[in-house]
């Protein structure tokens, strides 16, 4: 019997998710033994035509990382959806929009202007902006269209499962691959990790007081962080209480606060709003002015609370950015 075929693809992402696959280390040998990787642009030389020549549904599974910003990414996602029995949104960008999704706080025009005209390192005297079609001596040159906003994978195609994280923790990847191979799968739409808050698996959880209150907010470089005590108890903004478990509190083990890459639990629609509510409730004051002073210690609330999930949020992008 031939081995099940799988594909990996990347959209608007940094390449860290590909790195996570390599981080499987020895476990990757088991994966390679069990499946046939037929498409993986970062590592193997296959072309789009190789995917097009597959039968519909011939791929047992396709892992897609990255958000969707360009027409090329959208086309590839649709093509892979047709060829794959199961599509897994791999990593924060694909799951919730991720870091590239923060671009939704700016309009398409301001992004192009900044990148091609205004950035201090740019030398573009002819003020050339990328165009979808441009005439050259060689003929008509084309580029993929750059859309108004970054979308999550499931705002683009139907998604079967989600592997959260920036990048997804190795144990979650291994568990997901084993589940796919054995056919022992949870209901469609499941995020393939636990459904409790990160605090539940944090080694510092015992030092979290019954009633947390933030008398001040410090950024990690402003104090020497105690490596055993709950970070919120030390006044460092940690998003563990609003974030899903599954990483074994990896950042906390490195003495850094959780920034929320695994996204919300299944009970929450909008991660950033929920995290904002959770942190705001802990501010230790009942006086309007004092509360405002404390809140100003978070200089970039959208970037802090929606670091990985802006495109999946209720607002999706800055007001007035979309074309009507």
């Amino acid at each position, binding site marked *: 019997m031939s081995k099940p075929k799988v594909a990996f693809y990347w959209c608007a992402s940094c390449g860290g998710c590909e790195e996570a696959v390599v981080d499987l280390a020895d476990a990757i040998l088991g994966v390679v033994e069990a499946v046939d990787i037929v498409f993986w642009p970062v590592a193997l030389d296959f072309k789009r035509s190789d995917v097009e020549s597959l039968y519909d549904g011939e791929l047992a599974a396709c892992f897609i990382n990255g958000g969707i910003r360009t027409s090329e990414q959208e086309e590839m996602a649709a093509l892979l959806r047709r060829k794959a029995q199961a599509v897994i949104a791999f990593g924060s960008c694909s799951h919730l929009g991720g870091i590239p999704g923060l671009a939704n706080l700016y309009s398409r025009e301001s992004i192009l202007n900044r990148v091609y005209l205004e950035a201090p390192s740019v030398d573009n005297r002819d003020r050339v902006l990328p165009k979808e079609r441009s005439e050259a001596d060689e003929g008509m040159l084309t580029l993929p269209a750059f859309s108004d906003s970054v979308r999550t994978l499931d705002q683009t195609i139907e998604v079967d499962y989600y592997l959260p994280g920036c990048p997804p923790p190795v144990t979650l990847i291994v568990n997901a691959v084993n589940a796919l191979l054995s056919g022992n799968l949870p209901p469609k739409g499941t995020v393939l990790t636990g459904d409790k808050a990160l605090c539940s698996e944090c080694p510092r959880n015992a030092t979290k007081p019954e009633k947390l209150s933030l008398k001040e907010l410090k950024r990690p470089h402003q104090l020497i962080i105690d490596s055993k005590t709950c970070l919120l108890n030390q006044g460092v903004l940690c998003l563990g209480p609003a974030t899903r478990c599954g990483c074994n509190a990896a950042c906390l083990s490195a003495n850094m606060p959780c920034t929320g890459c695994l996204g919300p639990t299944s009970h929450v629609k909008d991660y950033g709003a929920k995290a904002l509510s959770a942190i705001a409730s802990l501010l230790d004051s*009942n006086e309007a002015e004092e509360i405002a002073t404390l809140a100003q210690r978070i200089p970039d609330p959208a970037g802090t609370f929606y670091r990985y999930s802006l495109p999946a949020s209720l607002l999706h992008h800055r007001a007035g950015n979309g074309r009507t």
Partner: protein
Amino acid sequence: MDEQFEPKLIGILCNWCSYMAADLVGTSRIRYAPNIRIIRVMCSGRIESQLILWAFRSGADGVLIGGCNPGDCHYQEGNYKALRRVTLLKQMLPQFGIEPERLRLDWICASCAEEMRKTVEGFTAQIRNLGPLRLQTPPLLKPIKIEMEVSRHVEA
């Protein structure tokens, strides 16, 4: 003359004070601007940011939160939680191109019908001046299915 812009406002009011005040406005036959749609909740501390953003996403031009006066919360400190959330949320809204004035928090006691009238009239006028909130979701997005699971909802 141009047709006057009529804002859509959502009022989320606490059962024990502001909602009672709004009720009293009605039974006293006091008139105020009809732009506000009122939702009753048990405590302003229950109103978390998702609900406010959901209102904006669903087409509200302004959101009014009503709670008990400081020290008067039926559940002791729900109104302080509302104050903390609204303060931080108002700090974030401009990053989304939403004027912070579109979100307003007021303490209105159960017998304060006149204050309720003034608040709603004032808020309506203020949002009318600001104009409509242009927050369109891109047509490519499938509509979000919103099922707020109130009973299963657990505060982290």
